[in-house]
């Protein structure tokens, strides 16, 4: 079975953040916890305003999994990185290790949680809610090899454009289409 991943088309994203609210509405994450966040990338002279929607990139080499002292993280055959929430101690090692700030700590619950790619939906043949909810259809979901073949993979260009961490750290399963 192939690895699942996302495509994020920054070129067509206009920052409504419907994906973030769809995620919250679907997963009922606590106040302050948003598994899919949209970052605004504001540049001046010349002006630019790009939005980068990102959740967990379900990496090939998940740093969260590597550092977790209680082995709360597992990676399924389809590449989805899951957290066993019961096991989480709230130590936040994963929060520090993840290059993409995917795991988020809730000070009220004193635990960490992160995007599970809407795994139950996927198991029922549905797509993740964030993908489904996007009014401009800028987030796509599928097998990463197919997505890379269709949408290209110039991740190094994107990384330098948006000051992103190197993909070499964790091998994220995301295709990012940069703004023109």
């Amino acid at each position, binding site marked *: 079975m192939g690895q699942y991943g996302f495509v994020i088309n920054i*070129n*067509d994203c*206009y*920052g*409504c*953040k*419907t994906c*973030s*609210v*769809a995620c*919250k*509405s*679907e*997963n*009922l994450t606590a*106040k*302050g916890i*948003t598994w899919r*966040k*949209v970052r605004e990338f*504001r540049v*001046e*002279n010349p*002006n*630019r*305003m*790009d939005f980068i929607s990102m959740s967990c990139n379900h990496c090939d080499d998940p740093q969260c999994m590597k550092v977790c002292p209680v082995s709360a993280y597992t990676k399924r055959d389809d590449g989805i990185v899951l957290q066993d*929430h*019961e096991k989480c101690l709230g130590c936040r090692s994963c929060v520090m290790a993840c290059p993409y700030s995917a795991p988020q700590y809730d000070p009220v*619950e*004193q*635990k960490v949680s992160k995007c599970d790619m*809407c*795994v*139950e*939906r996927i*198991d*029922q*043949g*549905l797509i993740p*809610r964030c993908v*489904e*909810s*996007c*009014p*401009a*259809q800028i987030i796509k979901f599928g097998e990463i090899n197919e997505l890379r073949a269709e949408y290209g993979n110039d991740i190094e260009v994107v990384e330098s454009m948006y000051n992103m961490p190197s993909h070499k750290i964790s091998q994220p399963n995301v295709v990012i289409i940069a703004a023109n």
Partner: protein
Amino acid sequence: MKEEMRKSQAELLNKKIKRRSFLKAAGTIGGAAIVGSGGIAIKDAIKSPSEVLASEPVKYEVFRSTCSMECLHCNLTAFVKDGKIVKVEASKDFNVTGCLRGMSRTQWVNNESRIKMPMLRTGKKGSGEFKEISWNEALDLIEENIRKTIKEIGNKGILLESASGNMDSIANSMAGALFTHLGGATRPAGSLCCSAVTAAMNPIVGFRYVDTRDTIRDSQYIICWGNNPAVTMQAYFKEYEEAMKNGARLIVIDPRFSETAARADEWIPIMPGTDTALALGMLNIIINEDLIDRSFLMNHTGAVYLVDQNGKLVRENQEDPDSYVVYDMKQKMLVRHNKKNIAPALSVDEVSIPNGYRTVYDLIKEEAKEWTVEATAKETDVPKETILRLAREYAKNKPSMIIQNMSGAQRTEFGTYVSASQFYLAILTGNIGKPGAGVCDAGGVTQFVNINPPVPSAEVTEEVANIPVAKLGESIVNGDPTEIGFWYIMTTSPMTQVPNTNMVRKALEKVPFVVVADSLMTSTALYADLILPVTTVFEYTSLMAGTRSHYIQLKEKAVEPPGEAKPDYWILTEIAKRFGVGELFDKPIEEHIKACLEGTGVTLEQLKQGPVKPVSTPYVPFKDGQFKTSTGKAHLFVEDWADMDHSPIVKYYCSKESIKNKSNKLLEKYPIMAIQYKMPRSIHSSFSTLEWLNEVHQSEPEVLIHPKDAQKRNINDGDKVVVFNDRGEHHAKAIVTTHIKEHIIGLQNGWWEQQGGSSSYVTNDTVEALGTGTSINNTLVDVRKEG
């Protein structure tokens, strides 16, 4: 203690997992085709073994409604479990995908701060101190105060204010009708959104609320003029992106580098209020370079109508308003404009016309001539080469479209001319009535079918008044044109939306009995004498057939409202009963819906299956140059404007509150101009307090200020600042950025008192000159660091 804490955390998590597993089940249904509603029970199909509820059947119901307010009326689907809404999604069979606000309705319906009972003021107005009373007591008070007002002031002392908040095809119409049956009421005149557009479109093209959204993707050149469709036409923005993929250029004219500007090919920052000068400058280039569509002007417009030496339109018969006269070049004589087989002259420059007559086109040409590239650049701050390029590209890259969509540009002192000037551009270049062309207004299904009012109005013989909505506060405070004794406010919040908030506040404090019907403690509700608890979307059945989507939609009731909240139409019916006119109102809601639909060919049964679009796609307004005026032609000379002592031809007038108006002494005190913009987190002030939206967007007001303006005032990015003028103050966080033009400050619309207050505290309450609109984007202010 520690043990207890762990226990409660475990319980919390357990609950969360239960909730989550249920929601995942509901999501399954979202993936299937859902049509209609009803008490469907489906076995939970969750496969994950770790989920607590995996073995239990999950019963839920699915209901549909629409996101009703002044937005796009996207269709929504609610998932209900045990009488509670657990999730709202955009309906999948609708033409566009609803957004984050629609989904957040879960948090609106289930909001802990809902008004649940009628509440009577006990403290000072604005203090937020109220006590709960019964509906009977509340209705007694309403009846008593209406009777008292009629006795002491007359019907004109009653003010009814309803707008585009929790609106639908029943409530607002019924409220208007109710007060006519009580003898009449004073109403606000004009609108905050777009009466300038009405004042331009009705005389020029004969029709309003017509949009070009169906053919955006066919356009080759799109100008978003003072408008930000990535936010305000959000569900349709992918159409713009499609157009761009097909090779269209997207241009944004806006003092702010908006979300749309960020996606566009070109951002043209402009001095607010000078848009008409830019349009005339473009027209001048288009005329000089002969980029006009001659045949379109001769056959489909009144550009060829003749004007006499006194500047009046020439008519064949003074009794016949449509008997406009043209000069036929074939027969070389004056003839009625619609005579067959004629070749009407476009200009005296091409042929000699008797009696010193000139054409309407000649007058336009003369008006545009003043706006040389140099003069236009000076007034608008748009560089000369940009003006030239813009004019040429708009005229040549056909089909070209202008997105006006209730723009901020027309919320200026002479907004009617701004709107009209865009139609001039479209008409003179023949960029209208074709796919991919036109001027996009907000529009909707009521322009295709006639929706009846649920209750007919009575004839009003009593004296009532109209108060221009921009001057609502000051008019009431001054008792001009009338004292107000009873003020009924529904589907709107004047404390956030009407300009000059301090005056609105004083007005609310002055009026002896203010009723606010709403679902939450809005800024306006704080100042009410009596608050009535109102249902929100998914808590009542109603009809939505409005001017925002091309669909007629049923609003289904999914859950019981909290406490004793009631639909607006229930409240209005109860008031009607107390005045002996109850029988017109007191009917099942289905009867009212059927009355609205009568003659449309659309039935309630059809709507129960889903939204109905009664017009074929794609809709092209004024197709083939068939306008809706009395002559079927576009009229470019507007006699109504002349009757109001303004130019009958589009003309640029410099606004009073403008940096360009050097004679205004106010400039010395307030050298910055403010514009107001909309955000994805709210529609006007609706949704503004919902947690999800505050979390993913922002929870406090911000203002955009240019680095040069900030530096002069020692303001750093993130500082708390005060934007101020003689009208009031707005407190916000400064965002120092080049994403706003120098000398301009960007204010956000929609913040509640409880969140720091509306930016309307400073906005200009001058009444727009020709359409009774607002001038909020002609506001002079200054800004200082807080403290």
